[in-house]
């Protein structure tokens, strides 16, 4: 047998399974066998179960809580109320948005489903029985669920704890139910442009209240080791380190005595960013009882009490010249935050990054103002599969463009192309203060329109309208266009923090002597496949196969500090930290290789998985050889071992973008719709794993479909949640979900070490306006300008009725 021939460079690249490779996911081996490790799978010796008594009323005074019958039930260990938590100063807790929130009802309740008492019992069955035995005496108070009514002078006072406070965490409060007014841009200049414009389109655009609804609900297991004084909390945390810091600040337990573990997480989508009363109560109960306490919410609790998303009333004005050049944009938002301001935004941005609302367009002047308002609804305001308030912004501008196109009598695709920021304008400074890092919108747009045969679609649509008018069909065609620009990867520490913690992220790498590695990150996957993709980034950086690299996240005792996974920040921030840590490894490896090859550092060049002596390709040291040498050679001036850690503070956000087209058939009589075609072009910069990217796009589009076409958290006028189970809260099945066509362009981020921008949330950001615009577009020939989501059957039917299409 011959000696094994040296493998080619291409084969060496392939063996790494690095950047750009559709590597199969390492996570799937355990998930497909039912061997995931989710928080409710955890069973600790002596573990107790917690369950909440919740308010049936949206606004009521709590006159008394009688827990005697519950305590008398065998198996019940404790029943906690605000009175029990008050001595610990834990009956209220700070929110991420600078407000505070009741942990357990302190004198009153402010939304249906609010936590009133926490029952701790030997098992989940006894706990549920005990919940029924707690007797709460309520006195109902007037309810306000409409943010506009909440700001009327005679509206009921919701937050009595804030009475007389004329300012809050984000400036002045002008009414007892007002939280803040936040502004960006130049109001005077914008008003002037709008006042003197050729054309102004004005519209109220509502992005309704919905909920991230991951398939796994929120929960935790708190376990206080009374011997060691160490508290361990396993839970569904998208940001485990932040939870540790918050837990330490709240409890007074030193941070090194707290270990927070996020095990496998069954989807997050923003729902698992916040700190909830269930976590606090479980920790207290574990400290009090000295036993582990598990709390897992059920679906109804999840939908009614933990973090909602959106609920933005966006009043816009967009100005343009007669020939369609946009000259200015203004937006005023009435933001319904519910009973407590618990939005998950970087501290200095109470309206998140809503001021990305100039979108993909070169708009010279703009202004936004956001009024936050209290109502008798659940707190939250999280970024549901998007960066902070970015879906609201994208929906707003993509609706305003459509409305402007109507006002101008122009084709909406042409209007977009006319106003796109041009490739040569990047880096582009927007009127509202952002620096867009990179983009090539016209290329993406042209590719998308060509792929779907846009001109032919418009022709078919016009023919269908004629046929409809002749009475030959009752179905219309809608062509939903969107070109979105996202802002993700929060964020630079100079202006982005959460509770004072800068929004950097981190990676620590240890190379083992035999050439395999472990990398630990401050993020936590909830399905994104970090264990697969971060290993790919590293494989390309350090030349060890991805299959030889273990990625670990979620354990604060082992992982470096990080701000977690949400807002598409993992790839832009932790992905960058991973690349940078890899480069530190490589720099040290170069010194070792130089020593081994007896050349100067500068005489070496990196080649896939090795350092090669320049001009002498037969002289090289592979990374595997270098790894071994780092542990067994005494190299002058070089410490043994091969490890690195990087904390990455991004210089800027990244700005993924995309062009989507949705073609929809709509039955005007029943409101039933069918998605005939959906084309999604995404530009997320450098593509790490195309298979994973495509999967993210399919999933995000399906969440967008749900939101646009039916999903909502709806309240009646007395504050009852009308959509508290999956019968009424719309999650599409495989049957309602269309087949998607995905495509891409690749415009690398100039400031990211590998040029990647993040993709998980783009399809939700761009998908919602694409679906919604398709509905609107179908009725444009009949005079529709704006109709609020969700576009479920009856609301589509109502559009048709109001336009007189039912004869």
């Amino acid at each position: 047998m011959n000696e094994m021939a040296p493998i080619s460079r291409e084969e060496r690249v392939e063996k790494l399974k690095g950047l750009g490779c559709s590597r199969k996911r390492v996570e799937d081996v355990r998930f497909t066998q039912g061997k995931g490790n989710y928080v409710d799978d955890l069973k600790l010796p002596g573990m107790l179960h917690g369950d909440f008594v919740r308010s049936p009323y949206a606004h009521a005074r709590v006159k008394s809580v009688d827990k005697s019958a519950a305590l008398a039930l065998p198996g019940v260990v404790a029943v906690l109320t605000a009175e029990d938590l008050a001595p610990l100063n834990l009956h209220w807790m700070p929110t991420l948005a600078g407000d505070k929130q009741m942990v357990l009802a302190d004198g009153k309740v402010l939304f249906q489903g609010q936590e009133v008492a926490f029952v701790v019992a030997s098992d989940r069955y006894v706990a549920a029985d005990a919940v029924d035995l707690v007797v709460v005496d309520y006195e109902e108070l007037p309810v306000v669920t409409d943010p506009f009514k909440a700001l009327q002078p005679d509206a009921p006072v919701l937050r009595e704890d804030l009475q007389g406070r004329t300012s809050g965490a984000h400036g002045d409060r002008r009414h007892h139910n007002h939280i803040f007014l936040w502004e960006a841009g130049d109001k005077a200049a914008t008003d002037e442009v709008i006042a003197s414009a050729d054309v102004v389109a004005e519209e109220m655009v509502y992005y309704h209240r919905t909920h991230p609804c991951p398939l796994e609900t929120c929960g935790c297991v708190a376990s206080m080791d009374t011997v060691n004084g160490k508290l361990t909390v396993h839970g569904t945390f998208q940001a485990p380190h932040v939870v540790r810091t918050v837990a330490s600040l709240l409890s007074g337990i030193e941070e090194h005595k707290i270990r927070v573990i996020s095990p496998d997480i069954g989807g997050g989508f923003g729902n698992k960013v916040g700190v909830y009363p269930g976590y606090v109560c479980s920790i207290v109960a574990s400290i009090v009882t000295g036993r582990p306490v598990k709390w897992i919410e059920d679906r109804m609790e999840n939908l009614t009490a933990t973090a909602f998303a959106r609920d933005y009333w966006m009043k816009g004005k967009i100005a343009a010249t007669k020939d369609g050049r946009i000259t200015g944009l203004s937006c005023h938002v009435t933001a319904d935050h519910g009973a407590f301001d618990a939005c998950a935004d970087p501290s200095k941005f109470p309206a998140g990054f809503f001021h990305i609302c100039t979108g993909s367009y070169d708009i010279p002047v703009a202004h936004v103002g956001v009024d936050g308002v209290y109502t008798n609804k659940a707190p939250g305001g999280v970024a549901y599969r998007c960066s902070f308030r970015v879906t609201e912004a994208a929906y707003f501008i993509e609706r305003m463009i459509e409305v402007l196109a109507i006002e101008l009598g122009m084709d909406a695709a042409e209007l977009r192309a006319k106003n796109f920021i041009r490739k040569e304008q990047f880096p582009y400074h927007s009127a509202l203060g952002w620096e867009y890092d990179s983009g090539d919108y016209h290329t993406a747009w042209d590719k998308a329109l060509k792929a779907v045969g846009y001109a032919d679609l418009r022709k078919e649509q016009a023919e269908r309208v004629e046929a409809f008018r002749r009475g030959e069909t009752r179905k219309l065609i809608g062509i939903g266009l969107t070109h979105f620009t996202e802002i993700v990867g929060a964020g630079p520490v100079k202006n982005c923090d959460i509770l004072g913690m800068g929004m950097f992220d981190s990676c620590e790498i240890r190379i083992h002597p035999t050439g395999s590695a472990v990398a630990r990150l401050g993020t936590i996957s909830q399905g994104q496949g970090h264990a697969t993709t971060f290993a790919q980034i590293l494989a390309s950086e350090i030349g060890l196969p991805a299959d030889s690299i273990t990625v670990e996240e979620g354990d604060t005792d082992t992982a470096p500090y990080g701000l977690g996974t949400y807002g598409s920040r993992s790839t832009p921030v932790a992905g960058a930290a991973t690349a940078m840590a890899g480069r530190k490894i490589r720099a040290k490896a170069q010194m070792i290789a130089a020593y081994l090859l007896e050349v100067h550092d500068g005489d070496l060049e990196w080649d896939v998985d090795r350092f090669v002596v320049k001009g002498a390709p037969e002289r090289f040291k592979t990374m595997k050889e270098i790894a071994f040498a780092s542990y067994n050679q005494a190299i002058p001036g070089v410490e043994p071992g091969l490890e690195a850690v990087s904390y990455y503070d991004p210089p800027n956000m990244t700005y993924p973008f995309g062009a989507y087209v949705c073609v929809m058939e709509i039955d005007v009589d029943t409101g039933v719709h069918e998605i005939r075609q959906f084309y999604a072009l995404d530009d997320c910069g450098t593509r790490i794993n195309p298979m994973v990217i495509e999967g993210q796009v399919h999933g995000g589009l399906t969440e967008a479909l749900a939101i646009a076409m039916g999903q909502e958290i709806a309240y009646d006028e007395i504050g009852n949640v009308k959509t508290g189970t999956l019968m009424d809260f719309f999650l599409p099945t495989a049957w309602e979900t269309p087949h998607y066509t995905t495509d891409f362009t690749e415009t690398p981020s100039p400031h990211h070490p590998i040029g990647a921008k993040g993709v998980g949330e783009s399809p939700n950001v761009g998908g919602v306006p694409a679906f919604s615009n398709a509905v609107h577009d179908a009725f444009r020939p009949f005079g529709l300008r704006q109709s609020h989501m969700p576009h479920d059957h009856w609301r589509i039917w109502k559009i048709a009725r109001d336009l007189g299409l039912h004869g």
Partner: protein
Amino acid sequence: MIPAAFEYHRPTDLQAALATLQEFGDEARVIAGGHSLVPMMKLRMATIGHLVDLRAIADLKGIRIDGAAVRIGAMVTQQELIADAALARAAPILRETALQIADPQVRAVGTIGGNVANGDPGNDMPALMQCLDASFSLVGPNGSRAVKAREFYEAAYVTAREDDEILVAIDFAAPGGGYAYEKQKRKIGDYATAAAAVTIRKDGTACSAASVAMTNLSDVPVWSKAAGDALVGSACGPADVGRAVAAALADIAPTADNRGPAEFKRHAAGVVIRRAIERAWSRA
């Protein structure tokens, strides 16, 4: 979501089941597939002291077809209805309807008896049974009796069945001719926004018999005699169908819920009924 505790009984014959119902009176309730009852119990909207599971009673199983006479045991699941080739030949509208109920897992467990006896206006089989003029065999402490499906439903969740009676079987004559069950819903797993069951027989070019019934458009299923009458003798042309639809709409009383306001449901019902009639006629 955890239900309150209960005692469980699994009788193996009907007499034992009836005796258990007698013994515990108001506290006892029968359970078939349980996919309506179990969620209600988990939500603690129903508290039941004694659950009498009918699954082990062999007499409640089986589909018998004798010429045009069809008898379906109360414990036959939707999945069994769908899979039964002889039933699909004799009365294909059952398969068509059952396929539009819930989802595969629920159909694997949910029974026709539970679907018709629960009295939930959202259930699909009651309207179908009214369309087919089926009768329900009930057995109680005083023996057995048959109640017409068209006379069984009194209000939402209130039926002619006494608490101590058990529905054992459903009988109907295979209608022959054309058929359709047309249902508009928001998604798989949802109840109907509006649904209609239609059977039509054709004699030459004219309609010789027609039956129209509707789901979730009132607090009980609605069989519209007038709608059927409007079709009989006609050639089911657009004007005839229009008259039948108008007659059917006169018999419903939809109410607003998350699926939409009553006015929308009435409009959607009109479309659904018309489509069901047209499809049934095209198959007649």
